[in-house]
C-alpha cells in the first residue's frame, strides 16, 4: 500500500520533470533548426522543425564575414578565461591555505573582515575601476579582464572550507619531518584537494567566460578581433537582428563547446553549487 503510493508520486514526478525538460530544450532545438534552414524557409508558414532543404549557408556566411569572427572571439575568450583561472587558482589557494591551515596573528579577524567587505555590491566599484583602468593604461586590453577579478572571494572561501577538512595530524607530522610551509602546501594540501581545485577552476572559468557588462565597457572602441565572445554576440544581436539564420548559427556555434564541456563536467559543477548550500 505504502509502496504503491510512493511509485505513484514518482510517476507524477517523472511526467513533470520530463515536461519541464522538453520545454527547457525547445529554444535550443528551435535555434538549431533555424540555423540549418535556407533563408526562404525560415519565415515560411506553417513553420517546421525539420528543414525541407537543410543548408549550412548561414555557418559558411558567419565564418566568412570579417565583422563576425566568432571563432576568433571564442579563442580570445578561451585564452582570457584560462589565464584568469590559472592566476586565480594560485592566488586564491595560497590565501586559502593561510586562512585554513596556517596559524598567524589576526587570522580570523582578517578572514571575516574580508568576507564582510565582499558583501558590498560591486556596482559601486564600476566607475572607479574604469578610472583605474584608464590610469593604468589597461583600458581595452585583456589585462583588464584578467586581473581585477583575481580578488574574488567565492573560490577562495570554497578552497579554505575544503582545506579546513584536512586532518591536522597530517600537517603536523609533515612539519616534524622537516617540510616547510611551501612543501606542505604543494606535497600534501594540493594533492588532497584536487576536486576542490577543479570546482574552483570551473567556476572561475565560467564566470570569466560569461562576463558581459565589464568587457562590454572595456572593449567599447577596441578592434573587433580582440573582443570576447559575449561582447561579439551582443553586437551580432544588435546588428544582424533580422538575419535569423545568421544569428542562430552564431548562437549555436557559441553554445556547442560550452554544452560539451558541461556534459563532461556536470557532476563537478552541480556538486560545487550544491556545496554552497550546505555549511
Amino acid at each position, binding site marked *: 500500500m505504502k509502496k504503491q503510493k510512493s511509485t505513484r508520486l514518482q510517476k507524477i514526478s517523472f511526467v513533470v520533470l520530463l515536461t519541464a525538460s522538453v520545454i527547457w530544450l525547445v529554444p535550443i532545438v528551435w*535555434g538549431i533548426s533555424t540555423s540549418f534552414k535556407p533563408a526562404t524557409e525560415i*519565415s515560411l508558414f506553417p513553420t517546421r522543425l525539420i528543414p525541407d532543404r537543410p543548408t549550412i549557408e548561414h555557418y559558411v556566411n558567419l565564418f566568412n564575414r570579417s565583422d563576425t569572427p566568432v571563432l576568433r572571439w571564442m579563442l580570445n575568450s578561451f585564452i582570457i578565461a584560462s589565464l584568469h583561472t590559472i592566476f586565480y587558482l594560485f592566488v586564491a589557494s595560497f590565501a586559502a591555505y593561510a586562512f585554513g591551515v596556517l596559524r598567524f596573528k589576526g587570522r580570523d579577524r582578517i578572514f571575516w573582515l574580508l568576507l564582510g567587505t565582499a558583501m558590498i555590491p560591486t556596482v559601486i566599484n564600476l566607475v572607479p575601476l*574604469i578610472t583605474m583602468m584608464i590610469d593604468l593604461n589597461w583600458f581595452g586590453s585583456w589585462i583588464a579582464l584578467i586581473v581585477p577579478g583575481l580578488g574574488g*572571494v567565492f573560490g577562495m572561501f570554497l578552497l579554505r572550507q575544503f582545506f579546513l577538512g584536512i586532518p591536522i595530524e597530517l600537517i603536523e607530522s609533515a612539519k616534524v619531518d622537516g617540510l616547510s610551509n611551501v612543501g606542505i602546501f604543494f606535497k600534501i594540501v594540493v594533492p588532497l584537494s584536487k576536486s576542490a581545485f577543479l570546482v574552483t577552476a570551473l567556476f572561475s572559468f565560467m564566470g570569466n567566460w560569461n562576463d558581459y557588462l565589464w568587457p562590454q565597457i572595456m572593449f567599447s572602441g577596441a578592434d573587433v578581433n580582440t573582443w570576447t565572445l559575449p561582447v561579439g554576440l551582443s553586437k551580432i544581436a544588435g546588428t544582424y537582428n533580422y538575419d535569423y539564420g545568421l544569428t542562430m548559427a552564431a548562437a549555436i556555434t557559441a553554445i556547442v563547446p560550452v554544452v560539451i564541456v558541461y556534459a563532461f563536467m556536470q557532476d563537478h559543477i552541480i556538486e560545487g553549487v550544491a556545496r554552497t548550500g550546505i555549511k
Partner: protein
Amino acid sequence: MNADLVKKKKRIRNIKENLSAYSFLFPYLLIFTVFFIFPFIYGLIISFFDWNFFFPERTEFVGFENYFKILFNSDSIYYTYFWNGLKNTVIFVVMSVPLLVGIPLVLSLFIDQQPYGYKFFRTILFMPTVLSISSVILIWKWQFYNNGGFINALLVKMGFEEIPFLLQQPWAWLSIIVVTIWWTMGPNMVIFGAGLKNIDKTLYEAARIDGAGELHIFTKITIPLLAPQMLIVMITTVLASFSVYGQPDLLTNGGPNQSTSVLMMYIRPMAYGTNANPGVATSMAVMLGLLMITVSIVQSKIINRRDKA
C-alpha cells in the same frame, strides 16, 4: 637562563611562522585591496564630484549635489533616470524573485522523489546556467519574434493571434522574466536539492503515521528544515535581480518607452561613453548598493527569526 632561551626560540619561530603565513596571503590581499577595497572608497569619493575622466582639471567637488539631483531635483534629467530606473528594477525584483525561488523549489521537490532519469532531467534543467547572457538572448529573441518565432508559430497554430512580445507591455516584462527563469534558476534548484537530500526521511514517515497531510508536512517540516538553503537562495537571488542588466538591455533595449529600463541600464552609459557622468552614475550606484545591503539584512533577520520560532 635555559627557559629564557626556549622562550626566545619560540618567539623567533612564531615570527617566522607569521611571516610565512603573511607571504602566502600577500598576493591575494594586495589584489583584493587594490581592486576591491580601494575602488569602493574611491567610488564614495567620486560620488561627491562632478567627475571628468579625460580632463581631470575640469573635475570639481560638488558635495551632495549629485545625490540631491537624482533624489529630489525633479527638473533634472537624472532625477527622471534614477526614479524610472529604480521603479523598473523594483518591478523586476518583485515579479521575478517569487518565481525564481518557487519554481526551482517545486522542481527540486520532484527531483527529490528520485523518479526514473532524475539526474538526466536535472542536467537538462541546470544547463542554461552555464551559457553566457548574449548567447541566451540570441536564442530567445528569435523565439519571441513574429514571422517564424517558435512561440508565435505555436499560438497561430492553436488559433490565437500573434503577440508582439518584445514591443508591448505586459509582454515585454513577461519575456524578460521567462528568459531570466530559464537562464538562472538552475543553481537555486540544486541548492534546494542539496537541502532536501539532507532531510531525514523518517520524519516524513512519522508525520504520515500521525495522520499529517502532504501540504502540512511540506509547510511544517520541509520548509523549516530548508531555512539555511532558503536564506542563501533568497539573498543571492534578490541581489542578482537588483543588479539585472543583460536581459532587458539585449532583449527589449529598455523598451517599450523605457518601461523596462532598469537602473543598471542608466548607470552603464553614464559610467563610460559619450553621455558619461561618472559622479552621477556613482551616486546612483551607491544608492542601489545601499538598497541591496538593507534588503539583504532585513531578509536574513526575517528568515532567522522564523527559523527560531
